[in-house]
């Protein structure tokens, strides 16, 4: 086929610095042409792993050792006691048969088995050992006698800060009788990512506070881009007491900015705008805290704007997803404790693994199948004579009713069958002219499920559901996207060529939505897309504001992917869809050379933005034969 092909997608997606890349292939060489993507807000998409992600997040977690599980190298020599060497033995200790044994005669300073590990007394270490042949007593660690609390055979783990460079494993008083094996000592947080004040420690893969107030746990150089927005996530667990801790950025020299105060355990997602020179991430136990608590899974990601979304819903190759503005009218999309519950409906768990990969799904129980067990949320919107779509992710067994209503006399819903995996269900309907109060309800009227899992509820004034818009206490709007400006005049042949795409519409509405080759105006353009007529794919070549050819074809379902190719050549215009020639026009001129200078997901000048899914685009610089067009679109 022709050389000088521009390609987008086909499973090979390129994104650089947030810009979508168009691949220009010339004689085996690949050059990149950038689209400019704009979207004023964040948005979500389905990632390659099937999880719902935020489009604008950098992949990199800016927090090092945020799961507090990093360990250093093994410090113990001969921890398996293969030979009687490397250990200093006090009274009662012997090494034989692959273990070190204490016969109960050792005591106090004369009851140690010792190895010089050159401990740093300012650091935390993790000790693991196995006890066998246990008869009585316990062992202690270090000269400060930290108790291992041994009561039987088994593996014991202890986190400690040493008081000297030596590891002392000590028996005393009651006299330990038994053997030890597989002794391991590793430094915790070996790269010193965390700077811990008094009362903070790292234990069991978590950052732990013993409740000491006004002391910080710090990681430096996290919020390095002043003015940038960051997403912070963390899990907080209270061991005992009343929690009062604070997440901040900054330091004592440049001041602190509070990101959030936290007073109860849970998984938190926070956002912050970085302040100049306040680069550090800090956790501070506040003065009214009485809790012993842990922090884990700390993540900080920079939020970049205007990034394209490659969505992997229902396909492994991915597609560029471009959507219009939409508002989620459900004010609590993940917190179902805020929804109204009737009958036996109960929120029985809130830590279910959700479609986002976080433990923020909710389990609803107490349904009977007899109706009257409702979970609903009233939006405050009057739906009279308007169309709405409600969507929600559900998981479970049996059936359940999803309904949208005006709470007066009209319900639009259906019985849905729950699945063992999360699945998004959507109900769409147009209300009559009766005024009311728009609500969304999940209930057991006509259903069989006694419980179900739920996450990600959404209500939009659209005839279809768009990508998930998370909310927490208010309605939230995702901005519309644009994707424009790829290429330059030398990349296109205005006098002949082929424009090909594999595209699907978001719905079968009466909205025209197109992409085009143009010179930045709609006076000279070749556009292709979805027309205002049901299930119609349209292509039109305009030269000097005069339509030279206008080809339309009605497909079975334009919300499914269709492969479309348009050939343009002087007095020779054709449209192929899914392997068949569907339109021919043997008259019509073409633009003069070097007219087309860009590929836009709009009409060229900013109108009729393409909203839909695009798996692939190709732009050929010469006309293709019928057989080539057939092959291309098959």
């Amino acid at each position: 086929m022709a050389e000088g092909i521009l390609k987008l997608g086909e499973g090979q997606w390129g994104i650089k610095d947030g810009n979508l890349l168009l691949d220009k292939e010339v004689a085996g060489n690949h050059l990149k042409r950038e689209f400019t993507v704009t979207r004023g807000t964040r948005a979500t998409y389905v990632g390659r792993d099937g999880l719902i992600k935020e489009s604008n997040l950098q992949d990199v977690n800016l927090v090092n050792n945020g799961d507090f599980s990093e360990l250093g190298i093994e410090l113990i020599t001969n921890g398996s006691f293969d030979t009687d060497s490397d250990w200093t033995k006090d009274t009662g200790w012997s090494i034989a048969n692959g273990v070190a044994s204490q016969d109960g005669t050792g005591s106090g300073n004369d009851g140690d088995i010792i190895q010089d590990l050159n401990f740093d007394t300012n650091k935390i270490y993790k000790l693991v050992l196995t006890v066998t042949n246990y008869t009585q007593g316990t062992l202690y660690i270090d000269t400060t006698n930290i108790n291992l609390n041994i009561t039987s055979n088994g593996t014991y783990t202890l986190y400690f800060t040493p008081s000297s460079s030596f590891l002392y494993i000590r028996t005393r008083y009651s006299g330990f009788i038994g053997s030890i094996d597989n002794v391991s000592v590793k430094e915790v947080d070996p790269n010193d990512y965390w700077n811990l004040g008094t009362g903070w420690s790292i234990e069991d893969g978590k950052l732990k506070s013993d409740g000491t107030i006004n002391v910080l746990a710090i990681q430096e150089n996290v919020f390095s881009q002043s003015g940038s927005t960051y997403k912070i996530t963390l899990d907080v667990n209270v061991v005992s007491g009343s929690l009062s801790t604070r997440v901040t950025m900054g330091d004592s020299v440049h001041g602190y900015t509070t990101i959030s105060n936290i007073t109860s355990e849970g998984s938190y997602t926070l956002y912050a705008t970085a302040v100049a020179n306040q680069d550090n991430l800090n956790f501070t136990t506040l003065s009214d805290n009485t809790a012993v608590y842990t922090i884990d899974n700390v993540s900080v990601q920079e939020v970049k704007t205007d990034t394209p979304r490659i969505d992997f819903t229902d396909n492994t190759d991915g597609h560029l997803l471009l959507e219009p503005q939409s508002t989620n009218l459900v004010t609590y999309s993940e917190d179902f404790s805020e929804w109204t519950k009737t009958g036996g409906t109960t929120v029985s768990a809130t830590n279910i693994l959700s479609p986002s990969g976080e433990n923020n799904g909710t389990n609803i129980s107490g349904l009977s199948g007899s109706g009257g067990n409702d979970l609903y949320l009233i939006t405050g919107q009057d739906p009279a004579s308007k169309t709405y779509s409600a969507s929600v992710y559900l998981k479970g067994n049996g059936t359940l009713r999803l309904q949208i209503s005006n709470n007066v006399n009209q319900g639009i819903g259906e019985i849905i069958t729950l699945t063992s995996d999360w699945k998004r269900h959507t109900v769409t309907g147009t209300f009559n002219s009766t005024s009311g109060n728009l609500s969304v309800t999940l209930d057991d009227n006509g259903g069989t499920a006694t419980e179900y899992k739920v996450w990600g509820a959404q209500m939009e004034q659209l005839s279809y559901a768009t990508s998930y818009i998370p909310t927490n206490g208010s309605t939230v709007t995702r901005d519309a996207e644009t994707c424009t400006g790829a290429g330059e005049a030398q990349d296109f042949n205005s006098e002949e060529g082929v424009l090909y795409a594999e595209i699907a519409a978001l719905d079968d509405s009466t909205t025209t939505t197109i992409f085009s080759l143009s010179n930045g105006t709609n006076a000279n353009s070749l556009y292709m897309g979805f027309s205002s007529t049901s299930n119609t794919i349209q292509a039109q070549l305009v030269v000097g504001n005069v339509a030279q050819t206008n080809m339309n074809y009605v497909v079975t379902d334009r919300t499914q992917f269709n492969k479309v190719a348009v050939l343009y050549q002087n007095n020779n215009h054709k449209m192929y869809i899914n392997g068949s020639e569907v339109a021919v026009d043997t008259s019509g001129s073409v633009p003069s050379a070097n007219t087309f200078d860009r590929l836009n997901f709009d009409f060229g000048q900013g109108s009729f933005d393409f909203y839909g899914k695009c798996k692939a685009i190709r732009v050929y610089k010469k006309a293709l034969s019928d057989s080539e067009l057939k092959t291309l679109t098959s």
Partner: protein
Amino acid sequence: MNKIGKYEFTNESTAKSKIAALGAATDDDGNTYPTHKHCIVELGNIVITPGDYDEEGNELEAPVLSEMYHVDVLWKDLTINEDGDLDGDHDAWDAYKVDIDSEGVHGFLGLSYADMKV
């Protein structure tokens, strides 16, 4: 740069005329579309006090709605002039601007009104 503004109008028609003044065109099918790229959300007469409902969702007491027509706008591509002031379409809306301490009843996904207040 982008900024967020919250506005209230005495009625819907005033709001719509201000929105239309930002720029609109009509396509060959007779559909009107904006020629600007600002993100405009018409909230309408927002709920001031929620209503009261029984277990069946029937309204016992109607919600109290604001008498004003509310609009949130994400203004895009504003520029800073030589005097350090913001230049852009938002200027013509200043008379309708409200300034609230909270994020309000509506937000733009991932953006903070407090941080981006126009």
